[in-house]
């Protein structure tokens, strides 16, 4: 029997996920063994665990790229930086949840434990390099988010959202699994590396099988990323889920799924022309950018509007993914480049490196912005409003600037950042990402993206107009006060502005992330 030889080095990439799982177990056990009425400590444990995991991942991000744990996972800066972003989002979501759940008398250790479990799933998903591992980690992530969506079961909306998310999520996961099975049938392996090596021959013999496998895997990912035309579930689920969970879904799930998508297809197209995935990604990106922004236009419900906005942001991310597979990117990297097996630091093709940097910076900006925006909405929700249809109506934001100038200023910053208006991080993220796309030769797509986001600016500015130029209605809600919510929102707002003005150190770190295992 071959007993594998595992070293400490093998455990490095999964260390952040390990920290998150241990923290989640501590929370689970604290919930059943400690019975104090005051449960804010759970949010603090959740936040500290996420920050610790983020620190571990940041340390890993400076390691050279390599495969680990018998090749089931890879350690590379891209996945580790993505883990840092996921942990940042998890920490903010934990803090936001404390006030939100406290207000509803629903603080439970399981909630934070599930948040940490889903973060562990995201981190592991981002580094998976084999289909079975990928599927298991995707399910860890998905099942914890299904349960979180249905966590507040009192109203009909959470139940409906949880049910829809579960059914459609299970459906999309089975599409992905089916695609993986077809590729396994065509190539005889589930490891991305071996699949990629065997694909040229399989493609020559059975092109239909390979296309079907590609298509099903892509559709499975597109569901998770919420790209048009696989976006139907998004508005209902995002609206019905507890608002901090929505924030985590829109930022974290998307980030992890994008990384997994990039990694899977980088390996898969290794021996093939990247043209087909390039066309597919471009189409998804265009549809999502245009569709998300146009669908957001008529929404008066701010939470629903942000759900459509997250579809649009998925489109911008897919623009970056398309840029990675663009012919120009591949051409510029003939020697050590995108479609060869050995990555070398410093000789990375510039285009691909700048796309990776753009993707990471964009996701960083979107994480802090989305968490902040959903967090502000969460703070303005009242428990007694949950059955009313106008809980998240624009009217609720009217006159916020007079009543609570600090909150209005923070929300304005988040809205401007979502719209990509300087001097916020959202502007710089779009600048880097669209710039990289233009470098990759995707001028048309980038122009379409800019035009679509101009339509989006109208949507976001309307919220700002309501806050600053409309009188407050008589029954305007005051945000509830809880120190955790305020810490999270201040942190997000400061990050949105500070990263928009001084991106230097972070972009310096991210520029190393161009070194991606498998590229």
């Amino acid at each position, binding site marked *: *029997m*071959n*007993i*594998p030889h*595992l070293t400490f080095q093998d455990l490095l990439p*999964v260390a952040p996920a390990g920290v998150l*799982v241990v923290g989640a177990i501590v929370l*689970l056990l604290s919930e059943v063994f400690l019975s104090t009425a005051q449960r804010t400590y759970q949010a603090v444990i959740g936040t500290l665990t996420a920050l610790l995991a983020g620190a571990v991942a940041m340390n890993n991000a400076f390691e050279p790229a390599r495969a680990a*744990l*018998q090749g*089931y*996972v890879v350690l590379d800066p891209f996945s580790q930086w993505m883990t840092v972003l996921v942990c940042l989002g998890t920490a903010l979501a934990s803090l936001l949840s404390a006030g939100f759940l406290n207000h509803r008398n*629903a603080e*439970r250790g*399981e*909630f934070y*434990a*599930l948040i940490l*479990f889903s973060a*562990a*799933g995201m981190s*592991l998903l981002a580094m998976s390099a*084999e289909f*079975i*591992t990928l599927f*298991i*980690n995707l*399910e*860890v992530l998905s*099942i*914890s988010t*299904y*349960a979180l969506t*249905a*966590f*507040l*079961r*009192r109203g009909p909306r959470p139940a409906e959202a*949880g049910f829809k998310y579960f059914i459609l999520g299970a459906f999309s996961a089975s599409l992905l699994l089916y695609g993986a099975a077809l590729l396994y049938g065509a190539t005889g392996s589930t490891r991305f590396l071996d699949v990629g090596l065997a694909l040229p021959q399989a493609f020559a013999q059975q092109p239909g099988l390979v296309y079907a496998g590609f298509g099903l895997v892509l559709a499975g990912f597109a569901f998770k990323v919420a790209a048009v035309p696989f976006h139907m579930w998004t508005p209902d689920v995002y609206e019905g889920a507890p608002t901090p969970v929505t924030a985590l879904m829109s930022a974290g799930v998307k980030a992890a799924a994008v990384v997994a998508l990039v990694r899977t297809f980088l390996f898969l197209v290794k021996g093939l022309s990247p043209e087909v995935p390039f066309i597919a990604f471009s189409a998804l990106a265009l549809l999502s950018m245009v569709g998300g922004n146009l669908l957001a236009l008529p929404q008066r419900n701010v939470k629903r509007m942000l759900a459509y906005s997250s579809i649009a942001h998925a489109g911008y991310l897919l623009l970056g993914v398309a840029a990675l597979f663009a012919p120009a990117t591949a051409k510029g990297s003939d020697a050590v480049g995108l479609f060869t097996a050995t990555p070398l630091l410093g000789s990375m093709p510039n285009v691909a490196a700048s796309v990776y940097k753009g993707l990471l910076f964009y996701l960083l900006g979107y994480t802090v912005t989305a968490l902040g925006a959903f967090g502000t909405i969460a703070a303005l929700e009242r428990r007694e409003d949950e059955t009313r249809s106008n809980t998240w109506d624009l009217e609720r934001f009217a006159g916020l600037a007079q009543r609570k100038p600090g909150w209005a200023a923070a929300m304005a910053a988040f809205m401007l950042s979502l719209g990509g208006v300087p001097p916020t991080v959202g502007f710089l993220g779009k600048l880097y990402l669209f710039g990289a796309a233009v470098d990759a030769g995707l001028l048309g797509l980038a122009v379409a993206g800019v035009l679509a986001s101009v339509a989006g600016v109208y949507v976001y500015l309307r919220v700002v107009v309501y806050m600053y130029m409309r009188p407050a209605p008589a029954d305007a809600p005051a945000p509830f006060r809880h120190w955790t919510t305020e810490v999270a929102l201040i942190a997000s707002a400061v990050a949105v502005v500070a990263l928009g003005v001084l991106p230097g150190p972070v972009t310096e770190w991210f520029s190393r992330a161009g070194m991606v295992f498998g590229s």
Partner: protein
Amino acid sequence: MSAEQVLFWVFAVATVVAAGGVILARNPIACAMSLVATFFFLAGIYVLLWAHTIAAVQVLVYAGAIMVLFLFVLMLMSLSDQGPVMTFSAWRIAGVVAVVTVLAALVLVFRRLPAQESLAWSGDAARLGDFGTIKHLGAVMYTQWLFPFEAVSLLLLVAIVGAVVVAKARV
């Protein structure tokens, strides 16, 4: 015809008959019991294909645990004796079209398969070795597939917590 071929036909016909019972029986409990029978006969076919582990899992998990869940769902619903009223809707036509299409595709694929008569049963056994046995699976799963295996325990933990949170916790 060898004993295996006889048994294959026994299992195959029985599977189809039992599967027909699942969709044709009026009483939901009878449907569920037909499903158990389907699972058992399928397990027999898996054994004939040397997939011993899958056969065991089929009986343990599907015919055991999953069926328990099915029966509980049936008991959760208020069952009355009358079945659903047969309606003639567009969905029904679409369903028939889909079934016929899939059936036609399967028949087409099946007819294009090369003749497999050269693969005698004993030849198969020699070719496969202990592939598909529980022993072989175990030897590979706990050593070469270590990480996915441990990840499954995390998945099961998350599933338990999720189930309890959604179905049990008082929030």
